[in-house]
């Protein structure tokens, strides 16, 4: 008896088994989301860990409104940090990537490698002097200080994304512009920038996500006035939090994640490309 084979050389049972395993992992991956969502919509008296697997008997948004009150200051700071930081990052990355792919100078490879190492360093290894430096230039504890740190340490990944993207633009296009008398900046403006849309999208999304989710820089360099939502969340719902209101905690965690989740769901394609860029040759 012959088994029916799918084009890929896989039997029908094989395909069903694969699908079943993949679906099982979908369930596993979504367990934390399920708990977050159902608990966040429970009224306080229902929000108990012992009953957290069950759906709310009475749906309530009280957890969400309490979370909003607690976190709105942090959310505003996060918006300021992530929006301004990602825009500056993208502009810098675009210019650097352009030069390192199309207007190379002697030693460009060395510079690029030295940049890339900056992407991997544990930021703890610069944190003590960085905090001192920001104090010296009076940016300690300010939003601008946090943005500065994000932008500087974001230079490597942004340069990498743009450089890898610009390598695919044919050199002849630049050469043609040059023959027409365009200098470096004119060629950038008229040839390179108009086709840079996807790389800007990837970089903006990538930087927005990592700045929004950052905890390390914020906790070392921030102050109560400038704390982004991650630090606020960790203070109110983290391991050291005193008051335990599970519905508020879970709603806070969701609220703090919504912006990046939305970006991911709406623009996931670009998010993926950013991930791949992080793997250099992946």
């Amino acid at each position, binding site marked *: 008896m012959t088994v029916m084979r799918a084009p*890929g050389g896989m039997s029908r049972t094989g395909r069903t088994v*694969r699908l079943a395993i993949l679906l099982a992992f979908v369930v596993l991956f979504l*367990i934390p989301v399920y708990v977050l969502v159902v608990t966040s919509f429970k009224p306080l008296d229902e929000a108990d860990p012992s009953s957290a697997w069950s759906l709310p008997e009475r749906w309530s948004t009280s957890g969400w409104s309490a979370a909003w009150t607690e976190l709105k200051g942090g959310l505003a700071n996060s918006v300021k940090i992530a929006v301004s930081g990602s825009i500056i990052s993208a502009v810098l990355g675009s210019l650097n990537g352009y030069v390192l792919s199309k207007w190379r*100078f002697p030693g460009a490879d060395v510079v690029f490698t030295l940049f890339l190492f900056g992407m991997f360093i544990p930021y703890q290894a610069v944190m003590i*002097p960085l905090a001192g430096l920001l104090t010296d230039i009076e940016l300690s504890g300010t939003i601008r200080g946090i943005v500065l740190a994000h932008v500087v340490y974001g230079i490597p990944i942004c340069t990498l994304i743009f450089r890898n993207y610009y390598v695919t633009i044919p050199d002849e296009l630049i050469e043609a512009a040059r023959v027409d008398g365009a200098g470096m900046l004119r060629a950038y403006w008229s040839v390179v920038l108009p086709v840079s849309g996807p790389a800007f999208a990837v970089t903006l999304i990538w930087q927005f996500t990592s700045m929004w989710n950052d*905890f390390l820089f914020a906790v070392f360099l921030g102050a109560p006035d400038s704390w982004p939502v991650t630090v606020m969340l*960790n203070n109110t719902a983290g391991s050291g939090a005193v008051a335990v209101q599970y519905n508020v905690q879970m709603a806070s*965690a969701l609220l*703090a994640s919504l912006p990046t989740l939305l970006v991911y769901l709406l623009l996931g394609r670009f998010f993926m490309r950013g991930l791949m860029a992080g793997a250099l040759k992946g």
Partner: protein
Amino acid sequence: MKTADGTRPVRFRRGRKWLPGLLLVSPSIVAIGLFVYGLIFWNTRVALSGKHDEVSEYGFDGGRNFVDLWDQPSWPGAVRNALVFTAVFVAGALLLGAFLAFLMDKGVRGEASFRIVYLFPMAVSFIATGVVWRWLMNPAPPERAVGLNQLFDKLHLGALANDWWQNPDWGMAAMALPAVWQMSGYVMALYLAGFRSVPEDLREAARVDGASELQVYRYVVFPQLRPVTLSALIILGHISLKVFDLIMAIAGKQIITYVPAVATYVEIFDRHDPANGATIATYMLVAVAVLVIPYLVWSVRSERVR
């Protein structure tokens, strides 16, 4: 004639045409030079200073602190925890990611949706997901079990219930679970792209030679993917050595899940000991550098050859 006409201007330009490029990148070069390399240098200086409080002067202790650290009660445990975490996290994310990619390689209905689900944890912070993981991995005893232990109990899998990250011996293995959850989708995406770049002819040739589907993967597909595996190992490895948010969100500064990144934080903010904080940070940097530098050099070089 044309060549003669064309050559001169090109050569003329070649002499200085790179200068504007260098100028345009120079702000970034200065920034990276100062903020990455300058501050690393300064941090090393602090590590060698013997400055164990915030008021005394910077001295020079000849690197004694790098040795003394090992006599501190919390440090060897932090290193061990980081190693256990790294082993479980890297192996777990790599195997699960490769397995998911293997299942999806031939195409599956609704592939886009699967990818979205497996990858979404990367878009959220551990500070946020730690809130729920802390609760899921709650070690309360059976009679008042909550979280995953309660779920196991309901599914008649009570034997699986355990102390999770509060187990003194292997707690860090449990701590790696949320990290596997976050990063395996990324590994899946890397491998899936890799699998699909292996030409179908190669696979077909192996099949003609009588290889089974599994053998095709074992002897044809995976050997082609060594660069992908290397990338994934480096990425996971350096994340793992630096793990901070996850631990802070789930356990805070408890000694049982102490790792170098948390230790740096504690030395700086709680113990007000810059020299110790900087020394631990230097050890972290060395660990990451040993892992990453050969990879970077290899990456940039092989790309230039190509």
